[in-house]
């Protein structure tokens, strides 16, 4: 069933008047996701840009219940919310925990892996801007190799952790990667995840123009280039069956990397190494 933008709900459940930067990739991800999830949703967000964008204690941009948790425990809080809903017999509510790359892959990982192990009926979303942008752009485990950050001025020297493969190894119901440049693909994945009776995990690449040092209006463009160059694969693992949802056209990786300020110190050998890695590893798992 092909989605069309005209059929999507008109209500704006997140995003209007939010406190984020102009051109924020995470806000785009939030708006697109809420088009799929609908108003019967409870969302928990740990410390991240997304939490501060949601508003302070007196004003909020969310039209749905939004709970700002401690940093480590968003999936655990969501598990508790689901347990409370089950105890009351409420079944038509989506429970979502929505964290950044630190709240998912680093600080928040123990609660996430616990919830995934219990196969809780909920969804965890990681919006990945590849840095700790809420605290000033420090290096995290989701930062790609060679990227300059505020605390690694010569660039990170270790690889990005493959969070999708880790979550796939939990044998949960649904694992998918998504990109804000492909909104209909993202919305279809959220709808699929919402119907699963168990745990689902969605990893969204949401560029941060401040951290990536790109112009604000190119946020979506770079999210698209990451997919088209093959550096970010869009696929889903639906109960063990792996399908690629967008076939890239394989532009040279330097067209994606070099315009970004964080990669301006990249050497030609490094670019060739990344290109060789894309050529070698693309489609692994088929």
């Amino acid at each position, binding site marked *: 069933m092909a989605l069309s*933008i*005209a059929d*999507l709900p*008109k209500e*704006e459940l997140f*995003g*209007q*008047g*939010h*406190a*984020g*930067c*102009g*051109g*924020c*990739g995470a*806000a*785009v991800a939030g*708006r*697109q996701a809420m*088009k799929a999830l609908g108003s019967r949703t409870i969302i928990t967000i740990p410390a991240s840009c997304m939490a501060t964008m949601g*508003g*302070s*204690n*007196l*004003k*909020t*941009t*969310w*039209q*749905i219940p939004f709970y700002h948790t401690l940093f480590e425990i968003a999936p655990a809080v969501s598990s508790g919310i689901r347990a409370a809903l089950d105890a009351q017999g409420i079944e038509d509510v989506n429970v979502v925990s929505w964290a950044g790359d630190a709240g998912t892959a680093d600080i928040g990982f123990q609660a996430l892996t616990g919830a995934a192990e219990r196969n809780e009926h909920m969804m965890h979303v990681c919006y990945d801007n590849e840095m700790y942008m809420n605290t000033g752009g420090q290096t995290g485990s989701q930062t790609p190799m060679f990227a300059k950050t505020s605390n690694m001025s010569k660039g990170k020297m270790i690889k990005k952790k493959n969070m999708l493969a880790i979550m796939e190894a939990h044998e949960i119901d649904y694992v998918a990667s998504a990109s*804000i440049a492909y*909104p209909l693909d993202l919305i279809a994945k959220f709808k699929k995840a919402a119907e699963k009776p168990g745990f689902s995990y969605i990893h969204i690449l949401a560029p941060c123009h401040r951290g990536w040092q790109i*112009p*604000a*209006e*190119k*946020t*979506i*463009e770079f999210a698209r280039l990451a997919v088209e160059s093959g550096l970010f694969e869009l696929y889903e693992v639906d109960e063990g069956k792996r399908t690629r949802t967008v076939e890239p056209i394989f532009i040279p990786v330097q067209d994606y990397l070099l315009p970004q300020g964080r990669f301006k110190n990249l050497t030609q050998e490094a670019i060739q190494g990344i290109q060789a890695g894309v050529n070698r590893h693309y489609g692994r798992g088929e």
Partner: protein
Amino acid sequence: MVKNLPVVPTAKAGSLVDTPTGITWRIQYPEILENCNMCLDCTLFCPDGAIVQQEGKLVLNLSLCKGCGICANECKENAIQMIPEYSGVQGVFR
């Protein structure tokens, strides 16, 4: 046992829409031109929900727009152009 839980302030849903953040940051604003073919891509790419579809046409809410320029950059028909916000020495804020 009944506990007296503290009463914490709770935000009214969607209350930031009335006092949006960041419109004073705007240095350029979008304008939708006549060659728009209603592909509606911009309604999903706008981070602020400033462009929405209402009754079959695009409505631009400048009180929400931060002027990032994503809509103009992503429009396949080049039907959105960004116009500088300030004019003259003093500047005029819309």
